[in-house]
């Protein structure tokens, strides 16, 4: 029975273009829709897999505006059984603030008898790219943390996790409870089923206030890098351009 808490963040979709809010404090997602990061999608998948394999449970948590319910319902439809939303303006919360808030929920749930064996997060959020919330959370909770893992199996109270390094695969074996941050690549996130969506609708999301006033991230402002004017030189159309391409490769000295 492994009870897993998985943390996700509502972020703007940003695959084609990025627009900033007027106060330059956030990415404006109003016209592009919202999602969670690919790393977090894999973390949710792992949470559900581990819960299923050990007859435990998966709970999903987010800190953000009320609209983050959309992302929580998304995870519920995939097999998480409970959800908590710390309702707050996430742009005011730095990574240390977010870690403290998650830790506060873990402690509050513990007092009601709900404990977590494993807390999963994405390796880095798709928008703020802080690379630290999971690690800070581990220090808040006094737990070990494994970073950047792509697969996790749990057996006999021990987490076996694997992380891809540049020259091979590194294995960790860590007793639970523990924290792990997940990198995309080890598991394929499932799609929601109709049954999953129906079950999600029956779950009442627990709403919480932030436990403390945030310190903030030190953000002064966001800027967009100046757009680079297109300088592309078209070498030609279709296979007839092959000669020009090989001329280019030769001039760069990359043909052997």
């Amino acid at each position, binding site marked *: 029975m492994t009870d897993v808490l998985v943390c996700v963040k509502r972020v703007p979709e940003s695959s084609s273009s*990025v627009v900033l809010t007027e106060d330059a404090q956030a990415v404006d997602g109003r016209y592009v829709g919202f999602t969670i990061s690919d790393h977090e999608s894999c973390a949710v998948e792992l949470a559900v897999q581990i819960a299923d394999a050990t007859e435990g449970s998966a709970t999903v948590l987010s800190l953000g505006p009320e609209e983050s319910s959309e992302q929580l319902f998304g995870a519920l439809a995939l097999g998480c059984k409970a959800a908590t939303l710390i309702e707050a303006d996430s742009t005011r919360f730095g990574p240390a603030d977010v870690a403290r808030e998650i830790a506060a929920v873990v402690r509050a749930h513990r007092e009601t008898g709900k404990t977590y064996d494993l807390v999963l997060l994405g390796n880095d959020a798709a928008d703020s790219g802080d690379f*630290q919330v999971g*690690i800070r959370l581990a220090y808040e909770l006094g737990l070990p943390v494994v970073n950047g893992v792509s697969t996790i199996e749990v057996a006999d109270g021990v987490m076996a996790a694997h992380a891809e390094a540049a*020259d091979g695969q590194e*294995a960790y074996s860590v007793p639970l409870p523990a924290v792990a941050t997940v990198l995309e690549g080890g598991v394929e996130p499932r799609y929601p089923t109709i049954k999953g969506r129906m079950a999600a609708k029956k779950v009442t999301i627990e709403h919480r206030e932030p436990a403390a006033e945030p310190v903030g991230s030190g953000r002064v402002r966001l800027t967009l890098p100046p757009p680079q004017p297109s300088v592309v030189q078209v070498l030609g159309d279709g296979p007839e351009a092959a000669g020009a391409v090989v001329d280019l490769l030769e001039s760069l000295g*990359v043909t*052997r």
Partner: protein
Amino acid sequence: MIVVLVETDADGVTEISLETVAFARSLAAEGGGIAIRAMVVGALPVPADAIRDQLGAHGVGEVHHVTGEAFDSYAGAAWAAALQELVAETGSVVALAAGSPRGNEVLAHLAARVGVPMAANVVSFSGLAPFVVTRQVVGGAVLEEMQLSQRPAVFTVAGHSWTAEPAPEPASAAWKERTPEIAPADLVARVVSKEVKGEDLSGSLKTARVVVGAGRGAGSANGFAGVDELAELLGGSVGVSRVVTSLGWRPHHEQVGQTGSRISPEIYIPCGISGAIQHWAGCASSKTILAINTDAEAPMVTKATYAVIGDMHEIVPAINEEIRRRR
């Protein structure tokens, strides 16, 4: 003082760590000549003298080599504990590392332990009081100005944002061995085994001089023959877009992008890749980009240096044929 966590590989100090040392040097100069200390951890892949000389040439005054049983295999908290001790001992006001997986992880541990903020993937700084850094967010599509008002200032430097040039006035670095005491709690999450794989993993992709890319335009798992052959002919690696790995056409370690590898080859040849921001985050450091795409308006084409418009399945085999013909 400034402390730089330095990583090593088979060639000595990694390129991205040398870039970080160059960043530290610029910061040191701005501060009126602050001394730079480097920390390297564990067994060294090349002789210690080589690393000492390399770091000295790049302006490091002292190299602290951390060893001991606790450092026989990687543990992020143990590395951070050693760094924390060195920062305290030297009274350092800045601790930095490369924006690599290890660098980001160890400095996040350090920041959590010391109770200060950490800025990941910094590309520049402006002024020391207040100390404001600019860093990459949203996979590099957006820049954030962030104030680091506490000391030590802890941050990592984004790869390829600085050039790894030797110092104009090289130092003769002193070598110091250290064997810090590490608490058992800092060794709970530790690498217990490592399976070293063949040369075709993402390691070679990240350092390849030529990368041939393929995206949705490949059409199917069977659509990579031309791309594979072109990479082979040029002695390069194949890199793919996320959609290709999501569809299961190619393995994840070939993925280039925000959640894959970041590459910086002499030439990147993306075939049938439209160029989403997440993909661009991984290939923007390529020196030359030659896009092959049916859509002349695709972001990958408009951002490229060169382009050929048309079907990759016709163009790539023609290029391969032309390369063979000229041999």
